């Protein structure tokens, strides 16, 4: 089978209770997945990119057998995720939380040893593999300290080591770098690329477009439980078009900036990102239909709106531009 992972029309609905008062609650229906279909080829890094609540974790949980789908089917390594759940579990490594899921009163090594036994690995093989993964993630010198003494970055590495413990051919990584400092995040990204070099298939979820661009061979953009596009990062960015994105760094950006600039010729979309709320300093990102005709026109419109321009650049589109283009929403909005 060419594909390591196949998902066909996955649907998942949750019912949550909204507490209105001490005794009164209202049931709410949440459609987490609305027919998600995709496939992941062997040996590739495939990213599910989307905002919080888009359905990324729900998808990973269905594929890793933790959650039953309401409709649709999925196969991992050729095994059906519902009918052959235990076969699926044998060939996947899953990292769900970066800093939870450990026994604090055990050392890093003891934690790994426990999970190696749960995976029913023979003792000698388990010890050998534990040493290998500890070395791989750079925890060999801290392996015999209690996990309660670990930093967030160390726990994240230990989590990664646990996913690799039984040397599975397929890895599911849910937001692998969330909450990590830049150095730890970089190390985790290097590890993911190392896994690809070893021939493993990686399905990762992220809302970090930089990470998706850097790591993924292909990306599925997911929003509100639907996949809106699947392709390589460069092909996805081509949808927005080269030379179509202008980034303006400015002061005094008003909440109505998009409205104020709507008259600029050829402008398809605009969104803002405020970095310093006190001075309303941030970026305006302008996406044009077919290249920028006249930057002067843009700058005058910005000045008329009372903003002070600090810099102007024509930039390459990012996956966030693609996301906005496809959904009309920013990655943090849904």
């Amino acid at each position, binding site marked *: 089978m060419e594909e390591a992972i196949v998902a066909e029309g996955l649907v998942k609905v949750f019912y949550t209770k909204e507490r209105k008062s001490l005794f009164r609650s209202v049931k709410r229906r949440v459609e987490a997945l609305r027919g998600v279909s995709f496939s992941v080829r062997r040996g590739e890094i495939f990213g599910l990119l989307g905002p919080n609540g888009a359905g990324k974790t729900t998808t990973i949980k269905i594929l890793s057998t933790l959650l039953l789908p309401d409709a649709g089917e999925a196969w991992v390594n050729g095994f059906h995720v519902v009918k052959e759940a235990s076969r699926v579990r044998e060939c996947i490594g899953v990292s769900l939380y970066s800093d939870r*899921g450990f026994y604090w009163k055990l050392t890093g090594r003891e934690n790994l040893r426990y999970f190696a036994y749960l995976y*029913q690995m023979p003792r000698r093989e388990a010890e050998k593999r534990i040493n290998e993964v500890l070395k791989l993630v750079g925890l060999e010198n801290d392996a015999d300290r209690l996990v309660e003494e670990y930093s967030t970055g160390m726990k994240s590495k230990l989590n990664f080591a646990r996913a690799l413990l039984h040397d599975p051919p397929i890895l599911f990584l849910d937001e692998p770098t969330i909450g990590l400092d830049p150095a730890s995040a970089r190390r985790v990204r290097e590890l993911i690329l190392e896994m690809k070099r070893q021939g493993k298939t990686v399905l990762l979820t992220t809302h970090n477009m930089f990470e998706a661009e850097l790591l993924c061979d292909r990306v599925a953009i997911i929003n509100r439980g639907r996949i809106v596009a699947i392709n390589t990062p460069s092909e996805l960015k081509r949808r927005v078009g080269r030379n179509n994105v202008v980034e303006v760094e400015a002061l005094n950006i008003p909440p109505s900036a998009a409205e104020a600039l709507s008259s600029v010729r050829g402008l398809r979309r605009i969104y803002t990102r405020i970095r310093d709320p006190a001075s309303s300093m941030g970026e305006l990102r302008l996406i044009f239909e077919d290249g920028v005709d006249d930057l002067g026109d843009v700058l005058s419109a910005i000045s008329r709106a009372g903003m002070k321009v600090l810099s102007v650049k024509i930039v390459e589109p990012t996956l966030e531009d693609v996301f906005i283009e496809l959904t009309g929403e920013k990655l943090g909005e849904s």
Partner: protein
Amino acid sequence: MERVRRLARAALGVYVKEMKIWLRYPTWIFAFIALPYMLSGLFNGIGYSIAGPRAVENFARNTGVSNPFLFYTLGTALLLATEVLLQDVAYSIRSEQLLGTFELHYLAPAPTWLIWILYLFPHSTIMVVVLLATTLPVLAFSGVLSSPIDFLYACSVLALGMLPLLGIALALAALVVRYKEPGAVVSLVQSVVILLSGYFYPLTVFPAWVSALSQVLPTTHVISILRSLLLAGEGVSPLDRRLLTLLALAVAYPVIGLYSYRRWESEARRRGELSKY
């Protein structure tokens, strides 16, 4: 055979892990050592304060046992064993939920209900060692352990009595998977077991309908058989009604417990409850 070997590895993992965690919090061991004697002293004190100098005489007449200290020490030891067994699976699951490790067990190929039952073994090992170390000297000193065969018979009855408790423990664990709150239900079940098992008094003190109700509890039969064997020096036939009832409960309760747990587990996978805590 390979499947059994693989499950044995999982069992070893649970055993070693739990032993290490428990031994890194050693204070509860002192509780196990002290409680049988403390509670026995407490009940003796209450007895004397109510019945005065005739307390022992009344006690012997009502229970058929002349040594109340021995009666209460054995009762408390069994009570502790029962309580640990009843609550252990539920509280272990709760602890795993809070740590974030509960869901991770569902990523391993070993059957989870078995893993949760395996949690009982390390705890039971320590408990049995401690209880034997504390109660055996008293039993020996009192001349109760005159027949090693009776003692081994008593141990077998105790082991048989633990099986239905496992079933109840799994049913309680199912409620924890669903409602994430073991305290209330576990305490309620434990209270019923304490009240109706006759750890500290003969059940004849209750109306007939309460005694009839107590027959559904395995602990009622275990304590009754053990008192006959160890304290009253009576033989118990393998065809004794109490023993046969215990055997039936040892089959029925684990089946009910396993069914409840697996049903709620599947429901939790459907509702996305495994990751909630």
